[in-house]
């Protein structure tokens, strides 16, 4: 009921084209996920970027909403109340960068002051956009084609709930710079959720994909490398799934042992791209020379920058 996308750029010269490449991939998977889309773009702050507060560790907080929000007002409020913050207003969202130490206070404040606003994710290098509607339109509204960066994880969703919401869309962001997208159907997610809840993990939705995301985050927080943590999730979750995970250092793809949900990978010297259908890779640069393969069942593939 979905399309998943991962795109890791190896050649720095290609980073400026990330957005364009990503949009072609999302467009190809719009039919299998027509109801909403979520995009996480990873981009190091550049030397000229005014949002770089280089002296302190900063965090970017991506915001979205299911309702119409005056994002300019949010930006104004943020700079008035958090003077070290810099806000970038997007079409249906915003990203606020500020010193890491102030992040919790900002999130708590948003909860109270702007109840319609949702925190889509936090990250030093990651910006998240989630919106409802036809994925191609979402890309156009947010001018995704002009975005640059070294990695992107995206998702197109065929929803079941009558209310398609931003909150239920992928990627799920269970920790800073960590995002997970999922295609398939878990069969034991309710039990795994209860188990995690008993350990103190808090959930934002009743979505099965969020369970896998939080399980992964828990393993990473416990010190596992991305590969190990991904293997743990593959073992614990039952059902049919293809997962694509993004972190600040790389990307992983995980498929269950039955491998009934599609996945294709294309790798060249300049990039690694993974998608649910080959169609999504068809317009990538030099695709004719790429090594194209399908991830094996019950295997984890990781790539780092």
């Amino acid at each position: 009921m979905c399309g998943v996308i991962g795109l890791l750029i190896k050649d720095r010269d290609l980073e400026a084209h990330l957005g364009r490449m990503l949009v072609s991939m999302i467009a190809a998977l719009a039919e299998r996920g027509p109801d909403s889309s979520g995009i996480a773009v990873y981009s190091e702050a550049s030397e000229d970027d005014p949002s770089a507060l280089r002296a302190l560790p900063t965090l970017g907080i991506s915001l979205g909403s299911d309702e119409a929000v005056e994002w300019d007002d949010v930006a104004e409020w943020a700079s008035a109340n958090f003077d070290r913050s810099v806000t970038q207003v997007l079409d249906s969202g915003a990203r606020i960068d500020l010193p890491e130490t102030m992040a919790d206070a900002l999130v708590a404040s948003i909860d109270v002051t702007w109840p319609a606003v949702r925190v889509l994710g936090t990250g030093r290098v990651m910006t998240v956009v989630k919106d409802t509607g036809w994925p191609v339109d979402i890309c156009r509204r947010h001018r995704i084609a002009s975005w640059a960066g070294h990695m992107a994880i995206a998702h197109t969703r065929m929803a079941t709930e009558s209310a398609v919401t931003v909150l239920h869309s992928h990627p799920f962001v269970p920790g800073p710079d960590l995002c997970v997208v999922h295609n398939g159907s878990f069969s034991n997610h309710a039990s795994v959720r209860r188990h995690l809840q008993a350990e103190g993990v808090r959930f934002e939705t009743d979505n099965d994909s969020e369970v896998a995301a939080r399980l992964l985050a828990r393993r990473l927080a416990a010190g596992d490398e991305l590969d190990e943590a991904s293997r743990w999730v593959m073992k614990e979750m039952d059902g049919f799934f293809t997962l694509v995970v993004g972190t600040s250092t790389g990307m992983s793809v995980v498929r269950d042992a039955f491998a009934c949900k599609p996945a294709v990978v294309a790798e060249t010297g300049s990039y690694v791209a993974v998608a649910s259908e080959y169609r999504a890779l068809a317009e990538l640069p030099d695709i004719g020379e790429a090594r194209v393969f399908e991830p094996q069942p019950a295997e984890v593939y990781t790539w780092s920058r």
Partner: protein
Amino acid sequence: MTADDPQVGAFPMLDHPVPQPANASFPPSTIERIHDMAESGIYPIRGLGARRLVPNFDDLVFLTASVSRYPLEGYRERCETRTVLGGRHGAQPLELEIPITIAGMSFGALSAAAKFALGRAATSVGTSTTTGDGGMTAEERKASSLLVYQVLPSRYGFDPADLRQADAVEIVVGQGAKPGGGGMLLGQKVSDRVAHMRTLPPGIDQRSASRHPDWVGPDDLRIKIEELREATEWRVPIYVKVGATRVEYDVKLAVAAGADVVVVDGMQGGTAATQDVFIEHAGIPTLPAVRLASQALADIGKADEVQLIISGGIRSGADVAKALALGADAVSIGVAALMALGCNRSSYPTDDGHLVDATDDYRALGTLPGQCVHCHTGQCPVGITTQDPTLESRLVPDMGARRVANYLRAITMEVTALARACGKSDVHHLEPEDLAALTIEAAAMAQVPLAGTDWIPGFRSDP
């Protein structure tokens, strides 16, 4: 204790054991079942549908004419039964005279004579039949003026040439008797002809896949539906059939994948052979299934575009009318059609109409007329679910066709009688407000008030 025993006193004398309370946890049938499994190491397999009582349409009644609601006269004041299915994507829709179709049942499970009779009956009353898990027979195509062609996980007998001759296509994700289980045909019914059609060695026990081989999930179902449209030049409606489990999600996903018609089969739905545990313990009843499915279509604003067919233990015009009132556009019948044909009848006709008693044949199967669920044995005493030519000859196709047509006409009249009494000039105008529930479960499942109250238990608030 004896009569001389001084302690007996006024205690009544008994010369037989005191009746013990019945063992509800381990009644005789359960004990026998355990003994059988201990003996054979295999689970019970049988035909037909759920035998145990579950909340069903009997627990609903119609609020017919009153001072404020006027009835139609019978006969002269027309009550329309015409039903149109499948026009969503511009295909040639199926135009039926009645809101009742014949459900998918395979040649293999059924004899060729049975399939032929069902086809003739359907044609004479102006409705459709459906192929089953074994492909299309030439007799069936000839007998049935409107034929729905099933695409099942096994793809037994699936032929693009037959696909091109079909009036509609039904992709079977599951059926009510065994959602998640594949088809089953035991060796005694895998005759030469059946084996040839299914590309199997004759006489083996057929194992079946439970998933489709070439797609999994609604996102890939969408692509499969397109393939079938391409192969039929976009001419025919595409149905998607599910067994009733997660009905709301399934209906919405089927629609998102491109279905023109959604078919939901409740747990009471029948089969010719499957594990008893599936029949009795998988799927939800037809009663909540129809309401959930109808509501799902309304939720996504597709109730006018996509039609809903409901099946699973439909027995009478009352069942049909209630299903329509709860939002179905049509119902599909399987077991009841076979019963009209002669299933569980104590005798069978000869060519000249003379009746021959078959009770001994039922006994030989370990059952009696009225209790038989032994379709899986292939020894059907009345020639319906058998491949044995001798037994099959007990089903005289023209007589069978007449009986099924009679039954379909009779229940259609029951539907219109109820609909007219509710003041409807069209059976499709029946609505939930025409109903009241007799039990709390039925009220909750059908989302209809408990009679005498305005209470609908378990009403779900918007998420």
